[in-house]
């Protein structure tokens, strides 16, 4: 089968992006019980399972909205593995001991693996970005929020009661600050990996 062919289960991804309640309900009905069972059999409880599922669905919403989620494998395997890996990582964090993630290699195909890799990378990038954004001063945060909500820099200037030239320069510098921090984190990471 063509590896790049979109799987019919893409409807679940599109449904999430459209905030379609019928689709979301059917995800809960069809795919969530398996995740809950897994988490409860692996030192978790129902509340924790509920949180993991919600986090993953919000992640998929974000990725779908960023237009970078094209499902090439069944939703079932993809969704279950994402939840499973997230849960095992949580366990690892809280117990401080090594938890090996043993994959059922035979049961998952290559494209599912690849997709999961993309989603986890998307998640990592987003988390890194959020951490850095929190480090910014309040002025930068406010200016960036307005710039990307309103889009017209003339209007942003008017709203903040400053000149157009000032907001343009300030915006470049705030984006620049984030760029610098993220670039440093990336360089550090590649240094660590080499």
């Amino acid at each position, binding site marked *: 089968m063509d590896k790049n062919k979109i799987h019919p289960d893409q409807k679940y991804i599109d449904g*999430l992006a*459209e*905030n*379609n*309640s*019928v689709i*979301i*309900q*059917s995800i*809960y*009905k069809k795919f*969530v019980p398996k995740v809950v069972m897994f988490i409860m059999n692996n030192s978790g409880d*129902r509340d924790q399972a*509920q949180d993991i*599922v*919600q986090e993953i*669905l*919000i992640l998929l*919403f*974000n990725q779908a*909205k*960023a237009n970078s989620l094209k499902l090439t494998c069944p939703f079932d395997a993809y969704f279950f593995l994402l939840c499973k890996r997230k849960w095992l990582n949580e366990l690892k964090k809280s117990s401080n001991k090594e938890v090996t993630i043993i994959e059922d290699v035979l049961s998952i195909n290559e494209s599912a693996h690849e997709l999961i890799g993309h989603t986890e990378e998307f998640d990592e*990038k*987003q988390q890194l*970005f*959020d951490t850095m*954004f929190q480090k910014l001063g309040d002025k930068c945060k406010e200016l*960036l*929020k307005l*710039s*990307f*909500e309103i889009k017209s820099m003339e209007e942003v200037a008017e709203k903040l009661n400053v000149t157009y030239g000032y907001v*343009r*320069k300030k*915006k*470049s*510098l705030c*984006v*620049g*600050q*984030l*760029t*610098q921090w*993220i*670039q440093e984190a*990336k360089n550090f990471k590649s240094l660590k990996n080499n």
Partner: protein
Amino acid sequence: MNEERYILFDQYLQGELTIDAKNEFEKQLLEDPEFASEFETFKEVQFQLANKFGIEAEREAFKQNLTHISEHHFDKNTKVIGLKPWYLAVAASVAVLFGLFFFNYNQNPVFADYNNPEQASFTVRGTVNESLKQAEEMYNAKRYNKAIPLFETVLQKQKTAEIQFFYGVSLLEESHYLKAEAVFNELKNGVSVYKEKAVWYLALSKLKQKDYEACKQILESISEDYEGYDQVQELLHQLD
């Protein structure tokens, strides 16, 4: 921080550089990997920002809807239940017994048999709005004629599927069929969690007007995935 570089990046992306400066910029992108890599990161940051703030309202709506569905799925209802289920069960069986004794079996089902509107509880989700609170109190006390104008006031300022739904139920209880059906039709065409429930209430509206044929047709359009499908089946069975 290399301020000039970031200002340059922004000017390039906005298409504000002169031809010469633009060529110079693109030449540097090709020759200087560090410059190119930093420019990539700059674009990525812009993308993240657009994704974070550009769709913030949509994301909030999604999260709210998701929480609602999730709480329901994991059976953690925030509903306020007035009577203990035990009482309801006894009351229901007594009613059924009386029904068996005193009514003939061929009678058509009536609206009252299916009329058990759920309690509203808006305040738990944080929005403390005086009119909405009053509307909720009136609604839960079944004083629908008082609740209707309050819901109307609230809906002018804040229109959510949840408020619309309870407004629709109030209208139906007071037999304002046209208005009620307009509200439920709007919900039916939307994507909220109330979508299917609205169809069920459209059917109930027909039932209350004793239009059994229309009621049946609407019921048949409800998918089996609907949470209250057992009631749908029961009513369909009675209509046959």
